[in-house]
């Protein structure tokens, strides 16, 4: 098991390298330069463009830029600096990491808590009324983009005179010490992103759970268990559901990078202080090291998510062994 773990981690290194090369190349291919945004300002002269490029290292060739950035990571764990903020990238990402994890965690948790039981119910009542309604709602959830749900929820809140139309707190609680009132205010804001971002996830997980369970329910061993006279509830929950949930564990691993890049537009619409909007603006501004680090981080999360899923799978499914 340990050998397997080490091998998996070692394989990540060349993959990450390759990902970083591709990301860097794509960012370089983007038209325009970081200085473009300033050109309209009367203070910005051609000399300033040159100085700025020299300060930022943009006067070097792309290959040099990439190698300097990479050696910083390898030797000092330095992910470069933000052109825009003139600060190390790690600090800028760090500022937003906590809220990103909270929002994504709550959203994923909510989606799964609703979706898995719902999937079981509709599988057990296949082709019934509940199945039809849930499937219909599920398809709509999948089809409607999360940012649109967010906009609709905002319009709804506005129509009813609410003030919780974006962000995670009301102005007076921003930066205030934690209190019960602040927590309530957070919940009052958090339900919108959770619902907006979560609905798509619910539909997806529910459909998956339904399909898995239907497969398993038709399996021979389930029939055998039933034939042996086991209580139907015990057959379903003890044997069928447990097996059917295995593929979902792999799916959970794949959802980790969603923390960063799955919900960018919804996060912008909802004004969430998370990493998604940061990736968006850094790509627009050609703030290349911020964008690179975030993309690299997203692929790292994807690989870690996969690894965790594989390990979790071995834990929940006694048939799977790595060695």
């Amino acid at each position, binding site marked *: 098991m340990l050998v397997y773990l080490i091998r998996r981690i070692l394989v990540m290194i060349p993959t990450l390298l390759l990902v970083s090369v591709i990301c860097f190349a794509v960012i370089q291919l983007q*038209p*325009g*330069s970081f*200085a*473009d*945004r*300033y*050109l*309209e*300002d*009367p*203070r*910005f*002269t*051609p*000399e*300033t463009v040159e*100085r*700025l490029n020299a*300060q930022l290292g943009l006067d070097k060739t792309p290959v040099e830029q990439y190698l300097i950035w990479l050696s910083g990571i390898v030797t000092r764990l330095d992910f470069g600096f933000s052109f*825009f*903020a*003139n*600060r190390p990238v790690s*600090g800028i990402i760090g*500022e*937003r990491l906590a809220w990103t994890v909270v929002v994504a965690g709550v959203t994923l948790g909510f989606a799964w808590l609703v979706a898995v039981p719902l999937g079981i119910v509709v599988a057990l009542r296949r082709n019934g009324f509940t199945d039809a309604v849930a499937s219909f709602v599920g398809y709509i959830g999948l089809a409607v983009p999360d940012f649109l749900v967010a*906009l609709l929820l*905002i319009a709804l*809140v*506005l129509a009813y005179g*609410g*003030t*919780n*139309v*974006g*962000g*995670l*707190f*009301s*102005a007076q609680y*921003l*930066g205030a010490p934690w209190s019960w009132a602040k927590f309530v205010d957070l919940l009052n804001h958090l339900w919108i992103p959770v619902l907006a971002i979560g609905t798509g996830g619910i539909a997806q997980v529910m459909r998956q759970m339904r399909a898995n369970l239907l497969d398993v329910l038709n399996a021979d061993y389930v029939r055998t268990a039933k034939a042996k006279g086991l209580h139907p509830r015990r057959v379903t929950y003890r044997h069928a559901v447990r097996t059917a949930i295995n593929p979902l564990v792999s799916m959970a691993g794949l959802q980790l990078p969603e923390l960063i890049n799955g919900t960018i537009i919804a996060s*912008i*619409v*909802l*004004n969430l*202080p998370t990493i998604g*909007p*940061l990736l968006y*603006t850094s790509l*627009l*501004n050609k703030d290349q090291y911020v964008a690179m680090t975030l993309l690299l981080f997203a692929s790292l999360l994807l690989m870690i998510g996969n690894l965790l899923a594989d390990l979790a799978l071995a834990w929940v499914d006694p048939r799977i062994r790595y060695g």
Partner: protein
Amino acid sequence: MYRRILALLIVASLAFSAVGLAQPKVVGYPGLGMVAGTPGGTLTLALGDSPPRFFYYGEISAISQALTMQMFDTLIDFDLETYELVPGLAREWSVSDDGTVITLHLREGVAWHDGTPFTADDVVFTFDQIVTNPEARAGDAASFIFTVDGEQRRATFSAPDANTVVITLPTPAPAFLLFLRSFYIMPKHKLLPFSVEGGAQPADINDAWPTDVATSEVVGTGAFRLSEYVPGQVVRLVKNWNYWRVDEAGTPLPYLDGLTYLIVPGTDAQVAQFLAGNLDQLNISGGQFPDFKSRELAGAGFSVVAARALFGSPPHLAFNFDATDPELAAVFSNHEFRQAMEYAVDRMRVIDDVYNGLAEIPGTPTAPVNGAFYEDTTGLMRMYDLEAAAAALDALGLVDTNGNGVRNISPTRELEFTLTYGNDSATWTDVATIVQNDFAEIGVRANLRGIQSSQLLGTGIAGDYEALLVAIGNQPDPELRKPIWQPGGSLYYWHRATQPAAQGERPNFDAMADWELRVFEIFETGSVNIDAESRAANYREWQRLNAEYVPVIMIAKPSNVAAVYDHVGNFVYNLGVIPGYNPVPHYFRR
């Protein structure tokens, strides 16, 4: 002998406060509807993005400028109503007869937010170590270097005593005082370690005051001081209780106890926050006006105000004189072609449909509201007339020879080009479509190419376009936008052949048409001519030349539009967010 530029009126209005310090009273602005406010309360405003840093000269950013305006002061301000120059940190000033020596007398008794006295040393430090430091990313070193007899010389700054600053220019610069109101004065005692004088490298100045700096480090002389920054969410400023400005009745300004800036990127999110009452005021566009106005009329508790704009960016349409395709380049550089195309640009439709009437016919290019320099060239401009456009194109021999509905430049070359515009804004998309449709009516095919608005000017400068829709800002004095409008200037992007072969060399006069040579001369004279009258007359001639020869087709001059809740008193939004124009200390909460 020194000649006093500013009216003696200001000196006469000097009043003595309880501590015996000379403080000119702030003139009331009854014309703007201002009244005496009641102190207290806070206002919540929107910031479109997180501030990149708190050091104004470290990054060109509208966000850091919005915060800097409230925390720092300029030497000279705009009168909120007349746009004339009035005292800021400098209580009076004088200019020598030859226009090269400017003496500024600073206000006494002003302190930085941390209590350190403000002195002339701070002013000299700001200009010497920051503004003219070529490595400061938002500095302005180039504007302080003057070419005299082919030799480059820098303006010098000195402080003969604690309250006097003397600026010596190598050559007269009539727009210099106006120019001075763009610079916020920085505290030497806090920023010295980042400067060359303090032993740092020139580029180190950009490291000052990143967003994770202690708020106590960011000290200004302004009406508010920094109190808190929650990354990505909010910036809080609190009242500077020792601010020097007072209202007409002697009540210290600002009236407000604090300003809360919610960081809300995205127009939709800002509108939602405003409508929910979480923001007290929001700058909007003409396109958003109908929605806001109908809510206002339905009793939403806010009003929508619009003001003709002096600053701000009027959109124009440019044809690339140096287009890669030689046949197109020949057509585009012919002013008769551009005149013909001007007939096909429906300015009134853009003003009515895109800006909902909250825009006006632009100058060429000076803003109509700019009384000092605006020349009314509407009589010279070619207003929308498709028949006239078609006839003018016919007269140029640009007719449809192969019967496909598109005119031909030659038997093998259609009159067809790409029109580059910003596709991330509804305004640009609408204008581009209107232009494209009208051009099609007269047999000219424009293929739209959408790019990010932030890259429009960069694309223009790189010459990578055929026709381009872009907006460039107006400034009160044409001198301040010389690189755009003087042939051969670094931003004179529609005719790049006029630019010098290498930086610092002479422009390529051979490439200039006669009218461009004249425009070049007008700007050269305008830079040094200290006679206001003949100078203005010169710039008026330039506007007539622009109207006649159409270097670019000016489309519209949008107004500034804002929505503000009725509980905000003394709201003024005439000029927009620009240095030296800050009505916020006068705002109060009803």
